[in-house]
């Protein structure tokens, strides 16, 4: 598993894909952060930024996952992986971890940049948190700390989890095709679908359907984090999407063996 992780990880940086991903993600992420919080006319609130950032994920994560299995299939290297003494589950896990570590590394890096800039140019981040917390009636140091955790750490963790779920979806789709472009485009479509599945809810006059769509929507669950609620069920939801799609990827390969 570690060998596959390492090879995939390194291959992102021996080919341009890793750099392209990091450049686009950091640029868009930073630009968005600046637009939503620092620029004149922006609300100055961090939750606005966090509400937008997940949309970028649906577009940049497929750039990483598009080649995961598609390329192996095209190059016929999957024969090497599948005839080596490594189980399919570990192969999938190795690929997932390499995608996820690049995504999460870049995102954490971007977050550090963002808040360093925020700290420098806006009011001190700490002051902002304290003021904001006091406005909401925080009194003790613990209240301030928990406000910080809920307003910044909470959404950050949520983004990282959504990233994991999207990585799993992307890897699953790349296991279905040997064409990277098909993999890229269908991944973006499906991820955006998961994001906005509940967006047209107010047009649907039937309550149970709205409930189901709301339940499936990645974005609806994410909303709670933006309002400063640490939603444990959302975490379970993201983790299960991740698990289900990785499991499906394993099944795709199992099934191919038996076909």
């Amino acid at each position, binding site marked *: 598993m570690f060998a596959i992780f390492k*090879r995939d990880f390194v291959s992102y940086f021996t080919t341009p894909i890793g750099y392209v991903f990091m450049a686009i993600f950091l640029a868009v992420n930073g630009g968005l952060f600046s637009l939503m919080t620092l620029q004149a006319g922006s609300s100055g609130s961090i939750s606005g930024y966090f509400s937008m950032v997940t949309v970028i994920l649906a577009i940049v994560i497929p750039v990483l996952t598009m080649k995961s299995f598609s390329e192996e299939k095209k190059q016929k290297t*999957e024969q090497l992986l599948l005839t080596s*003494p490594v189980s399919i589950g570990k192969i999938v896990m190795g690929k997932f971890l390499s995608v996820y570590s690049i995504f999460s590394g870049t995102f954490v890096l971007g977050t550090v940049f963002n808040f360093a800039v925020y700290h420098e140019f806006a009011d001190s981040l700490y002051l902002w948190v304290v003021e904001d917390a006091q406005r909401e009636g925080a009194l003790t140091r613990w209240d301030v700390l928990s406000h910080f955790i809920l307003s910044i750490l909470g959404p950050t963790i949520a983004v990282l989890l959504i990233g994991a779920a999207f990585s799993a979806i992307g890897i699953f789709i790349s296991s279905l095709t040997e064409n990277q472009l098909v993999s890229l485009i269908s991944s973006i479509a499906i991820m955006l679908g998961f994001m906005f599945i509940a967006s047209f809810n107010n047009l649907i006059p039937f309550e149970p359907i709205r409930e189901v769509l709301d339940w499936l929507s990645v974005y609806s669950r994410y909303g709670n984090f933006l309002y400063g609620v640490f939603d444990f069920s959302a975490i379970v939801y993201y983790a299960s999407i991740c698990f289900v799609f990785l499991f499906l990827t394993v099944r795709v390969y199992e099934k191919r063996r038996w076909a």
Partner: protein
Amino acid sequence: MIKIQNLTKSFGSNIVLNDVSFEIGKGEIVGFLGPNGAGKSTTMNILTGFLSFTEGKVTVDGLDMFDFPNEAKRSIGYLPENPPLYPEMTVTEYLNFVYELKGCTLNKKKHIEEILEVVKLTDVKKRVIGHLSKGYRQRIGIGQALIGNPKVIILDEPTVGLDPRQVVEIRNLIRTLGLNHTVILSTHILQEVQAVCDRVIVINRGKIVADKRTEDLASAVEGNRRLAIKVCGPEKEVTQALRSLPGVYSAECLGNLDSDSYSFVLESDAAIDIRKPLFSMLARNGWPLIGAEASNVNLEDVFLALINNTNTANAKKKRGSKKRNAN
């Protein structure tokens, strides 16, 4: 070392392997021979655990492929039809990756140096695979199969795309490997089998047609002795005289060479050498013998004979069943 019992594999309703059984012992070099689409690659893919099978039993080094796939795969090195290479890696990086993937425990640096030496890649070890020629890639593929010193080495058409000198080198390499590995080699190049293998398994349409030692295979079909001769003399009379020689089954005139000489093909009993009586007969009649060549049955003929036999047998069977249906 390898034991395949009643192996059947079907893709949907299409039966690719039908009740195939064979056993391969330690240190054997076995050639796997068959026309395109015979089931060679499918058998190899099953042996290496890439594909599963519909029915039967496959054991490698005493380990059942179905129950202990990972343990069984550990004792196999496999070169698929297309060498599984990552074009963006260098040769050393790639071999290191395979080493780690297979979870080897040998001394890494030394082992990889040895393999580079064996497949003669030391000169290009720092080059990126994508920039190397087909011959080099094929050798990297073979090198990859050797990593971890597996007990069984399976090579699917290893000499495809190599130049003649490299082909000789690779064949020599395979023979050396056979000294302390079990080697299975699939190919449709007959000379390769003749040159390298101890044993041949011929497969056609998913069934084993022959499973013999290489030297026995030729004699299996070789019943008669064949002689091609050129004689100056009148066509009809010479043919008559040839046919009347003791031990000659048939004599055919193949055609006119120039104004007065003809070429003939004689088939005679394998037990009798007809060359001496032939010569004295021709001399007696004053027909100069200007050429004679013994044409041995070669592996190509054997192969075609075997394949044709099964094809016609199948066709007959099919016709038979159709008739029965009609009735």
